[in-house]
């Protein structure tokens, strides 16, 4: 039987969506040829603007991705979407439901949507998504939107894989001051306060401003008025970037075009300040380190007798040796 894989990469580069989908699967599955596939694609990457979309469950990320993708299509850009959901640690399966909110995007050849489970494995989220991002990039998609549920490490990982990170908040998550995690300030390039049609959106905006140090804590009636004294979001005089806070109603598309324009402004800011290449360099460094670490470990383990590692572990548990000395001995033995 002729192999369907033989022309995978040429077909992908020629625009075959089937070849694109199969390449993503091969890389997700970690087939032995995955590194060779990625090597072949690498010269064709580096053109896409990668936008991470993260936030608490149910804040409207998928609906917003749907609306943003439409706005990008209206602006003449092609869009790849990666929607990541967690793998169940119990069964290893996953329920990937983000497409339900993206039905408006059906039938458009300028859009490609892929749902992805974290598979919670070696290298974690960053590895798998970074690789799938590369595949969509090589296939020529100009903007790549990556949706991840903002829980724990996932949102930090996505920030390291994206050029621009959009954090989605929504009113009504209870006490905003506690619901909005302090960590988001470090990863957010933009905030969307989605579901702005709901009560409390202004308060969510205020809490975010407060966290940015722009507004005093809201105390009863004495709400700080957003006066002209506040610094304007965007590029600052010292070269830093103050994340804008934008209200959106993703279900209606309200505020989405403004959000898209801000995302583009952030890309322009990165490019102007050389930040783009610095982010690219940071991404490349992380990537290379990770690959090296994996390869070195595999190399080292291959050079040791099969049960050597297990013996050492037993010895460590019995306190016959400490882990540092054990590592030293294994290294000496392997080299």
């Amino acid at each position: 039987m002729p192999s369907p894989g033989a022309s995978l990469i040429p077909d992908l580069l020629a625009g075959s969506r089937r070849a694109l989908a199969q390449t993503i699967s091969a890389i997700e599955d970690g087939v032995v040829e995955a590194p060779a596939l990625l090597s072949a694609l690498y010269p064709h990457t580096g053109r896409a603007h990668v936008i991470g979309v993260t936030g608490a469950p149910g804040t409207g990320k998928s609906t917003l991705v749907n609306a943003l993708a439409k706005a990008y299509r209206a602006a003449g850009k092609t869009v790849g979407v990666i929607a990541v959901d967690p793998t169940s640690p119990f069964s290893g399966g996953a329920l990937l439901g983000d497409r339900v909110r993206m039905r408006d995007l059906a039938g458009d050849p300028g859009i490609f949507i892929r749902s992805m489970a974290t598979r919670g494995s070696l290298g974690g989220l960053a590895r798998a998504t970074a690789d799938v991002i590369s595949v969509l990039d090589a296939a020529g998609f100009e903007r790549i939107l990556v949706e991840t549920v903002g829980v724990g490490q996932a949102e930090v990982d996505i920030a390291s894989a994206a050029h621009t990170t959009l954090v989605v908040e929504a009113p009504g998550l209870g006490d905003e001051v506690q619901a909005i995690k302090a960590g988001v300030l470090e990863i957010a390039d933009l905030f969307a306060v989605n579901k702005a049609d709901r009560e409390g959106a202004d308060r969510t905006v205020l809490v975010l401003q407060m966290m940015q140090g722009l507004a005093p804590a809201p105390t009863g009636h004495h709400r700080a008025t957003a006066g002209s004294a506040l610094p304007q979001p965007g590029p600052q005089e010292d070269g830093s970037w103050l994340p804008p806070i934008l209200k959106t109603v993703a279900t209606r598309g309200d505020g989405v075009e403004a959000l898209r324009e801000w995302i583009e402004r952030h890309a322009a800011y990165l490019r102007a300040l050389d930040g783009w290449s610095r982010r690219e360099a940071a991404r490349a460094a992380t990537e290379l380190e990770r690959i090296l670490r994996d390869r070195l470990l595999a190399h080292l383990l291959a050079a040791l007798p099969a049960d050597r590692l297990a013996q050492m572990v037993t010895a460590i548990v019995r306190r016959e040796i400490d882990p540092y000395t054990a590592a030293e001995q294994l290294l000496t033995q392997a080299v």
Partner: protein
Amino acid sequence: MTQRKIRVLIAKPGLDGHDRGAKVIARALRDAGMEVIYTGIRQTPEMIVEAALQEDVDVVGLSILSGAHMALCPRILELLRREGMDDVLVLVGGIIPDEDVAPLKALGVAGVFGPGTSTREIVEFIRSRVSDASAVDASGLAASAVAVGSERP
């Protein structure tokens, strides 16, 4: 380090609005270790096949309660074939009269599951029919990677 998973698209074509049954199946398949892409209600055959293609699924599960299965299934199978996805396992669940089962299978539907079917039965059916053979041939992948690599300027 390969970690191949069976990927299943669960879709609800046609105009009937409720998808409780489809969701029960989706969860059962997830609990059986599969990756289930759930697309929601009122999907056209075109939307279903487009999603199946992008998601590169092994299985397409259709939940049809509207009685329109004899119109929807041939269209979906035809579109799948047109995309070169003849190897995808197509399953139909819902209310399907006995006399329609044979014609559906003749069209290429692999399995028809009525309302009484246990989720376990469906899981076993999928497992028995989706093997690693459906994975893209790996030696071919390497060849293509090398071919492209050498074309580089």
